[in-house]
C-alpha cells in the first residue's frame, strides 16, 4: 500500500514524514480499522475517568483507603512499567558497551520501548499523586536524601531524559539532520553507561521502597534482599520483553522491515533466551537464599505460602528451565511463549510484593475498582499507539539507508 503511495508526486514533508506518503484524505480514511475502533473506545472511556479523578479526588474513582494507600496505579503502572521497560538498558549495554553486534536489530525498539515505558510510568504516577504539581519540589529545593522514594524520583527523572537522548539518532535520521545525528551517535557510550547506572539504582530501589514497611509486608515476600530481587528480575523481564516484542513487531510491522537486510531473528531469540535462562536461575537462587535467611518455613504451608511457592516454581524456576531447553533445541516458538510467561511472572511478582503481601496485614483487602483498571489499560493503550506511530515513521525496526551503521 504505502509503496504505491510513495510513488505519487507528493514531495511535501508533511505527506512524506507524517502521513506516511498518503494524501490527507486517504490518510484520515486509513484510521478507520477495527483495531483503531477498539483503541478509540478504550481511550474514550479512560480519559474521562482520569479527568474525573482530578476534579473529585482519588477517592472518587479508586478503592484506595487510609489502610491501603498504594493501589493498582503504583503496583502496575509504576512498578511493573519500570520492570518491563528494562529491555532498554539491557540491550543498549549488550550492543554498545559489550559490542554484541548480533543484537543490533533489536536495540532501537528496546530503547524506544524503554523510553515510552518510563514516559507512561510518569503519566501513571502523576494520576496517583495527590499534589502532582509539587513534583519539582524534591528536584529543586527540598531534598529528602534519606528517602528511597527520593532516589527513585531522581533516577526515574534522569533516566527518562537519558532514554530520550538515547533515542535521538533515529529521530534525527527521520528529520534528516545528519550533523545532529553524528553528535548524538558520539554520546551513545556515556549515555548507555549512565543509563545502566541509573537503572541499577532505581530498579533495585523500587524494591527497597518496601524495606521500611517491615511490619506490613508478608514475611515470604519481605527480605532485606528485595532490592536485589527487583534488579535481577528486571533483567529477566527486559530480555523477555525484547524476545516477545521483537516477534510481535516483525509480524505486525513486516512492511517496515528492510527486505534486503537479513535479520536473524531466530538467532537473536535463542541468544536472548540463553541470557534470560541464566538470569532467572540466579534470581531463583537468590530468592531461595532470602527465604532460608528469613527462617519462616512455618508460613509455606498456608494459603499465602502456596501462592508464594507457585510464584517461585511456576514463574521463576519453570521458565528458567524451559528457556534453557528451548534454547538448546532452537525451539523458537517455545521460547516466545516462555518469554510471555516470564513477563507475566514479573508482573505477578510486583503485584505480589506491593498488593498481595501488603493485604496480609490489612483489616480489609484492597481490590482495585473497574475505573482503576480502566485507567491502567488506557495508559498502556496510548503507549502502544505512540509506539506504533513512531515505528511506522522513524527508522526503528530497520536502518535508514541514508545512514549506514557505524559502531
Amino acid at each position: 500500500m504505502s509503496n504505491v503511495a510513495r510513488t505519487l508526486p507528493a514531495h511535501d514533508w508533511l505527506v512524506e514524514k507524517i502521513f506516511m506518503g498518503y494524501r490527507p484524505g486517504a490518510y484520515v480514511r486509513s484510521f478507520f480499522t477495527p483495531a483503531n475502533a477498539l483503541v478509540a473506545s478504550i481511550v474514550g472511556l479512560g480519559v474521562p475517568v482520569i479527568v474525573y479523578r482530578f476534579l473529585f479526588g482519588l477517592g472518587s474513582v479508586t478503592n484506595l483507603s487510609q489502610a491501603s494507600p498504594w493501589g493498582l496505579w503504583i503496583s502496575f503502572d509504576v512498578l511493573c512499567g519500570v520492570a518491563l521497560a528494562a529491555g532498554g538498558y539491557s540491550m543498549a549495554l549488550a550492543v554498545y558497551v559489550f559490542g554484541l553486534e548480533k543484537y543490533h536489530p533489536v536495540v532501537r525498539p528496546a530503547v524506544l520501548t524503554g523510553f515510552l515505558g518510563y514516559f507512561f510510568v510518569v503519566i501513571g504516577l502523576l494520576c496517583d499523586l495527590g499534589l502532582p504539581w509539587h513534583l519539582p519540589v524534591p528536584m529543586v529545593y527540598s531534598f529528602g536524601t534519606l528517602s528511597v522514594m527520593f532516589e527513585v524520583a531522581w533516577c526515574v527523572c534522569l533516566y527518562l531524559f537519558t532514554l530520550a537522548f538515547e533515542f535521538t539518532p533515529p529521530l534525527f535520521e527521520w528529520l534528516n539532520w545528519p550533523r545532529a545525528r553524528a553528535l548524538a551517535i558520539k554520546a551513545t557510550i556515556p549515555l548507555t553507561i549512565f543509563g545502566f547506572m541509573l537503572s541499577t539504582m532505581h530498579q533495585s530501589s523500587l524494591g527497597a521502597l518496601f524495606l521500611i514497611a517491615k511490619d506490613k509486608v508478608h514475611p515470604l515476600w519481605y527480605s532485606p534482599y528485595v532490592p536485589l530481587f527487583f534488579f535481577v528480575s528486571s533483567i529477566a523481564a527486559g530480555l523477555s520483553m525484547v524476545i516477545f516484542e521483537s516477534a510481535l513487531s516483525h509480524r505486525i510491522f513486516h512492511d517496515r522491515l528492510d527486505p534486503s537486510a537479513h535479520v536473524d531473528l531466530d538467532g537473536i531469540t535463542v541468544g536472548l533466551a540463553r541470557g534470560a535462562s541464566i538470569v532467572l536461575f540466579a534470581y531463583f537462587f537468590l530468592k531461595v537464599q532470602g527465604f532460608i535467611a528469613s527462617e519462616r518455613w512455618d508460613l509455606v504451608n498456608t494459603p499465602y505460602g502456596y501462592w508464594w511457592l507457585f510464584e517461585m516454581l511456576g514463574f521463576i524456576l519453570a521458565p528458567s528451565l524451559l528457556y534453557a531447553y528451548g534454547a538448546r533445541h532452537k525451539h523458537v516458538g517455545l521460547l516466545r511463549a516462555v518469554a510471555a510467561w516470564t513477563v507475566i511472572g514479573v508482573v505477578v511478582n510486583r503485584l505480589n510484593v506491593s498488593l498481595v503481601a501488603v493485604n496480609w496485614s490489612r483489616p480489609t483487602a484492597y481490590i482495585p475498582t473497574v475505573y482503576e483498571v480502566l485507567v491502567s489499560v488506557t495508559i498502556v493503550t496510548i503507549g502502544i499507539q505512540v509506539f506504533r506511530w513512531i515505528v511506522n515513521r522513524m527508522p526503528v525496526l530497520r536502518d535508514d539507508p541514508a545512514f549506514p551503521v557505524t559502531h
Partner: protein
Amino acid sequence: MTLSRRTFFKINAVGAAALAGAARPAEASARMASHDGPAMLVDTTRCIGCRGCETACAEANGNGALELPGDDAIFDRHRATDPYHYTVVNRYAAALSAPGGERFIKTQCMHCVEPACASACPAKALEKTAAGPVVYHGERCLGCRYCMMACPFDIPKFEYSKPIAYIKKCSFCAERQSRGLLPACAEVCPSGALQFGRRETLLEEARKRIYDRPNDYVHHIYGEAEAGGTSWLYLSDTPFERLGLKTDLSTTPYPALTDTALSAVPVVMTLWPPLLMGLYTFARERKEERHE
C-alpha cells in the same frame, strides 16, 4: 588500542559526576536523635473517656464539630484517626484483675524519636523539627503517600475525597509549643491522664508510678522502646495489645531498615562507570583486532 586522552577524560568526567552525588550515607549516619524532646505521658488508668482532648484538638486545628459529642454510643465501634480527626479516644475491656471493667485510650501521632515517615518522605514535607515534634509542610508534599506505607502506627492520613489532597496528622501542637503553651489536648485533660514534659523526665515519672504501685500497672512503658522510641508514652493496667496498640513492632528505629539499600548508591555510582568503560575498551579492542 591505546587509551586516548579524550577517552581518559571521558572516564574521569563520569567518575567525578558519580562522586559528586555520593555524599549521602554520611548524612544517614549522622541522623540526629534527641531522646529528651517534648513528650506526653498517657496514663490509661486515669483516662475517664470524656473526649475533651478530641474537642480541644478539633478546635485547635480548625477541624469542625465532633461526631456524637458526649454520647457513649461513639464507643460502640473502634475508630481510627482520619484527615479531620487527629486524635480519637476508644474504649476497650479492662483486664479482669483491673477495677472498673473498661479502659479508654487516646490515639494520635506518636512523634517517634526517629520517625519512619520523615525518612520516607522524598521532599522533607514531613520533618522531625529540632524542637521535637514531627510536623508536616503541605507546600512540599507530593501526595505520594509513602509516609503512610512507612508509618508503623498508620498515622498519616490522606484526603482521598479532595482534588487537591494533603496528608493530615497531629502536629503535637508544635505551634502552641513554640509559644510556650501546652498541646491543646493536655491543656483540657481533666483527669490527669495526659502529662506533658521532657521525655526523660516522663520516663522517670512512669517508672516511679509502676514502682510505687506495681500491682496496678503492666510493667512496661509503651513507647520507650517501640519503633526505636516515641515521644508519646503509655502506661496501662491492661495488656497493651488489648488496647489496640501494636506490640510486635521493631525496637530499632524504622529509618535504619533502608540504610543498607541507600548505602549501595555511592558504590554503584562510583564503581559502574569506570568498570563499564573498561569493559567497553576491551570489547572495542577485540573488535578492532577482528577487523585487521
